């Protein structure tokens, strides 16, 4: 259906290639997962398939791209718009119209489809994606999951046979994410759609896909069966990591089979999660209420947080996590008391080079020169001080802002969605930074969707629903296995042992 032959791409003639001698051949109806570390070039590969590389990124490309046997090596993306539907990382930011109907019609208008046929096709696309009731709704009124579906419907409205999605679930809660991926899987099966999806949270997809493409850090690419591919891949979810650690051959691809095998083979005694001794109360919230125009975002929330404690605030999109963090920050706006890293960490960056940001941060915090820089080095590899902060990867930006905020040495640290868009390796780094902070006597409160990250990091989980606390319990209980716990971690689901939620409890040096 779509193939790349000997495709190489780099930003400048002297730069390292971002994609090196890529050979891919994807057949019709195939459901493909693309994975790789943060910054490895997953997005670049997808954009090369769409034709946005090199036309929209600049740079030099060589090689051949064919679709359905036809050569499109030098075609602009709009020349293949009738063949490929593409949805980028933030579809809500890429909407061109006001209403669902107009959004779906956009591609058809560009392709010059006559008006009566256009309406027919839009309605067909709406029916296929289960959005018929939303036809005349405004896009801004839709939920995140619905917006994703509209973006997909809009990408397929002209009858495109190939769908390319870049991180479609990064902003969705686990339930919406699951529904969305099931739905794409369904389209592949029933409509013979070829779908190519880049995704960090491999566990959401491994069960569904036909093949896996891995983009390696040396810019090479491999394509093969899921089990073979993931057995050698380093940035994998706990499910696969467990299989790798226990040296299962072949590795198990889904929770059910892993559960059976685990029950049959695991005989050791699981370890308990190591909690720290808690110190004095550093932050206490009493009846916190946040109201917006016609919505109560946070509804009488009370809790106390102590030194050495890591608290995760969980809940669906719109349950009030972000509002709660901002309210806690607002209780004590002194920067010496509470440090906060907002969801869009890059909002804090406005100078034109990394070195400027670092030395400005030292000045603002009245810290010794290079304090921020040495903090940053704990989180990431050494970075070029002349680089523009906006050219850093999202993980690196997060690390930079985290360092800038920590250098103020506040006892309480708030983090809003600290793992958005990070791969498993980077998440582990962030987790170990958080554990180190707790060990240094700080109190960390973070909002997150990410069950596996919470399982590695938190001591205690506060669950919000519509602004209210519906549970406030130790992490082993919140993410542990019991029937219909939607938040159970993968290890909990596989082990079915009480209090076991994280990989390090069942594997490792005995």
């Amino acid at each position, binding site marked *: 259906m779509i193939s790349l032959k000997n495709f190489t791409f780099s930003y400048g003639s002297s730069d390292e290639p971002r994609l090196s001698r890529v050979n891919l051949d994807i057949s019709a109806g195939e459901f493909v997962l693309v994975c790789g570390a943060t910054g490895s070039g997953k997005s670049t590969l997808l954009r090369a398939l769409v034709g946005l590389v*090199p036309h929209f990124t*600049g*740079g*030099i*490309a*060589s090689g051949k791209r064919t679709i359905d046997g036809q050569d499109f*090596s*030098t075609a602009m993306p709009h020349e293949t718009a009738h063949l490929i539907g593409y949805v980028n990382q933030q579809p809500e930011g890429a909407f061109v119209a006001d209403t669902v109907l107009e959004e779906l019609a956009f591609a058809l208008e560009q392709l010059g489809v006559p008006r009566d046929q256009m309406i027919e096709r839009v309605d067909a696309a709406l029916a296929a994606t289960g959005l018929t009731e939303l036809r005349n709704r405004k896009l801004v009124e839709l939920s995140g999951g619905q917006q994703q579906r509209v973006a997909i419907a809009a990408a397929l409205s002209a009858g495109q046979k190939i769908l390319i999605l870049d991180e479609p679930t990064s902003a969705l809660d686990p339930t919406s994410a699951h529904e969305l991926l099931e739905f794409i899987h369904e389209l592949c099966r029933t409509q013979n759609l070829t779908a190519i999806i880049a995704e960090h949270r491999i566990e959401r997809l491994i069960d569904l896909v036909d093949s896996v493409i891995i983009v390696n850090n040396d810019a090479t690419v491999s394509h093969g069966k899921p089990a073979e591919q993931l057995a050698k891949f380093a940035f994998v979810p706990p499910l696969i990591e467990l299989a790798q650690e226990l040296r299962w051959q072949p590795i198990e691809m889904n929770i059910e089979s892993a559960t059976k095998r685990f029950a049959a083979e695991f005989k050791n005694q699981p370890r308990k999660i190591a909690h720290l001794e808690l110190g004095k109360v550093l932050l206490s919230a009493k009846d916190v209420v946040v109201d917006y125009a016609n919505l109560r975002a946070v509804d009488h929330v009370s809790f106390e947080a102590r030194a050495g404690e890591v608290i995760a605030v969980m809940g669906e999109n719109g349950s009030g996590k972000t509002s709660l963090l901002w309210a806690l920050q607002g209780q004590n706006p002194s920067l010496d008391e509470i440090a906060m890293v907002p969801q869009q960490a890059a909002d804090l960056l406005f100078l*034109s080079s990394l070195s400027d940001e670092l030395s400005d941060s030292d000045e603002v915090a009245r810290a010794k020169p290079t304090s921020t820089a040495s903090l940053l080095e704990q989180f990431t590899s050494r970075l070029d001080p002349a680089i*523009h902060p906006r050219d850093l990867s999202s993980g690196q930006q997060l690390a930079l802002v985290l360092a800038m905020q920590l250098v103020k040495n506040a006892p309480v640290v708030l983090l809003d969605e600290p793992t958005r868009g990070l791969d498993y390796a980077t998440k582990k780094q962030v987790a170990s930074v958080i554990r180190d902070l707790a060990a240094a006597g700080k109190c960390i409160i973070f909002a997150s969707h990410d069950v596996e990250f919470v399982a590695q990091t938190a001591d205690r989980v506060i669950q919000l629903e519509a602004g209210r606390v519906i549970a406030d319990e130790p992490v082993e209980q919140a993410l542990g296995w019991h029937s219909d716990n939607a938040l159970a971690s993968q290890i909990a689901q596989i082990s079915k042992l009480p209090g076991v939620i994280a990989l390090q409890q069942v594997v490792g040096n005995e």
Partner: protein
Amino acid sequence: MNRQPLISRISIAIAAIASVLMFAWPLLIAATNQNENQIAQAVFIALMPIIIVLTLVEFATGDIGSRQLAILGVMTAINAVVRLLGAGTAGIETAFFLIIIGAYVFRSGFGFILGSTSILVSALLGAGVGPWLPFQMMAAGLVGLAAGTLPRFKNKFGELAILVIYAVVSSFIYGALMTLWNWPFLAGSESSVAYKAGAGLVSNLGRFLNYEIVSGGLLWDAGRAITTSALILLTAPALLATLKRAANRAGFVKQI
């Protein structure tokens, strides 16, 4: 967008001359018949939007890609919002610094479109659509057009200096053009500060300057010059870096 063919450049030049005439007609008109003055004025109100459309078409048929359009859309939106924030307060004009900086980075064609669309969008969003709108669009477009031809400097101080000087000059020129537009409406044709048809350019220029002084127009222009150059001094170093970064990412070698 910078590769306008010659014929297109000539058309743009003629459109610019025509629009300057449509602003400055009270200074130039030879007809002494009141009727003819009014015809000229009324015809120009209808003609100006058409000349703007024709100029925009000239730029649009050049090499304008989706990416330049995206940057254009963003800068237009920011400009319109910023203009709405500052609108109404005496002499404070917050739209011009972005037009000038944007045009300086992305050159004349971008500057013309940015100038005229910024004014259009802010008018549609609430600053008011009126008969003056096409004239404001054209004047702001010309400010952007000319800003795109400013000489480039390697060092930051030179860049900042030329931008500030241009900000001051263009603020007064824009002010003069817009005052010329309302001059015949507000000063009539009989007073000593009104235009006198057929009196000749020099005499009318004197009358016009008197009008600018007594009507407070110059104060208003000075306000615009001060706010625009202050905003440029405050934001240009950072903005130039940001926009040049976007320009670099947007324009690159492509080769397969």
